[in-house]
């Protein structure tokens, strides 16, 4: 049967790896290639590489960074950051990416999603959705462009799902970088409403958080801080998941 995935997320600002807290404060962590090499040697399930400034600056993730990182990996690579057009996607794939993550592009021009899917196939397109909690019960889509002030999360995820995106990457802005635990309610809320597999990211502070996330309905868990700032490895997370009866690849 299908295994649950633990996916390290590597954030870059053009050329350096960094880690944010609540999408704000940043810490610089060095070379993406070194980090990719380490993850490959740890036999991880896959890798997500996101340039978090590209969209803001009107550029897109550097194709040569994609190539240099893809060259270190024999596992699937998803890349994102300012992916705006079919040309951007084609370039990313040619450089070695297997899937592309789109965020701002989808929000600014939702008609592009079905076009991308038609050309490249559903399995190639990951819709990345940043989410903030408005109050006890409401979640809103967050965007650096401020373009979705009151956009309901579920409406947006359902739209993406209906258009046929391959996966949804849900980034919890409030918990990002805090290592304070995952939002199981949010995971359940979204995963029970969409057919596409859900990759949840934001807040994992210990391996057991992965169990919580998966049991709440995620198909995969995206992790950044835990691996950058503690001694826990992806395998540590999978061991705990395995002990808790969740099929993983060990």
């Amino acid at each position, binding site marked *: *049967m*299908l*295994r*649950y*995935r633990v996916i390290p997320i590597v954030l870059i600002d053009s050329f350096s790896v960094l880690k944010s807290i609540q999408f704000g404060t940043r810490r610089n962590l060095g070379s993406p290639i070194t980090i990719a090499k380490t993850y490959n040697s740890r*036999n991880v*399930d*896959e890798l997500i590489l996101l340039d978090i400034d590209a969209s803001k600056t009107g550029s897109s993730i550097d194709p040569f960074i994609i*190539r240099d990182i*893809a*060259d270190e990996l*024999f*596992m*699937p690579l998803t890349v994102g950051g300012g992916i705006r057009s079919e040309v951007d996607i084609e370039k990313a*794939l*040619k*450089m*070695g*990416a*297997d*899937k592309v993550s789109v965020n701002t592009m989808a929000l600014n021009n939702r008609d592009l999603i079905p076009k991308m899917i*038609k*050309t*490249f*196939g*559903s*399995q*190639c397109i990951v819709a990345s959705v940043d989410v903030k909690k408005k109050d006890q019960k409401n979640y809103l889509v967050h965007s650096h462009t401020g373009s979705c002030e009151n956009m309901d999360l579920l409406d947006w995820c359902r739209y993406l799902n209906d258009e046929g995106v*391959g*996966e949804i990457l849900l980034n919890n802005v409030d918990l990002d970088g805090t290592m304070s635990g995952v939002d199981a309610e949010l995971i359940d809320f979204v995963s029970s409403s969409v*057919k*596409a*597999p*859900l990759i949840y990211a934001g807040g994992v502070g210990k391996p057991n958080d992965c169990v919580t996330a998966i049991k709440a309905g995620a*198909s*995969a868990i995206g992790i950044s801080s835990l691996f950058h700032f503690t001694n826990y490895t992806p395998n540590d997370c999978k061991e705990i998941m395995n002990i808790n009866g969740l099929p993983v*690849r060990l």
Partner: protein
Amino acid sequence: MIGLVDLGIGNIRSVEKAINELNFEYKVISTRKEIANAEKLILPGVGSFLAGSQKINDLDIKGILRTKILDERIPFLGICLGMQLLATTGTEGGFVSSGLDVIQGVTSKIKRSSDVKLPHIGWNSVKQNGSILYQGIKDESCFYFVHGFEYNPEDADANVAYVDYHGQIVASIEKERVFGTQFHPEKSQQVGLKLLKNFLDFK
């Protein structure tokens, strides 16, 4: 000469990297003439059947591929879309398009009940069937799948291995010197590299 057929859709770089890692020489090819000169063929692909079928038409290589595979019987490996294109036809969004028709069968969308996530994405274990592809690989090893469509061969002589995803999905196929994998060996770490080596070593 090992020919890596580039349909121009998807990512062949990963396959190139894997072949390089295994120290085999190959050529990236896409014309009828180049295919005619190949002694072994690999057809990778990511994308829709429709797009793949269209590209084969645009490049006008259906004929030469069938000649090389069925008449000259050179070893052939189709990866993901490359395996799905072995089918007679593929149905997608109401359209029916033709495949290479090398091993009779149909490629169509995976259907599961509403609570099952689709596409089929991630690592899943393959129940091996004795194919040479799996030589030296532990049974039920995991390979990486990322697809929304599946190939269902109708040829009783084809040796098929399955993966379980709330029901069986064809994971790989072997018939004489024709091979196909739904999963991506070039993305499946060590077991994937071993599988590719088994094909590249195959005479």
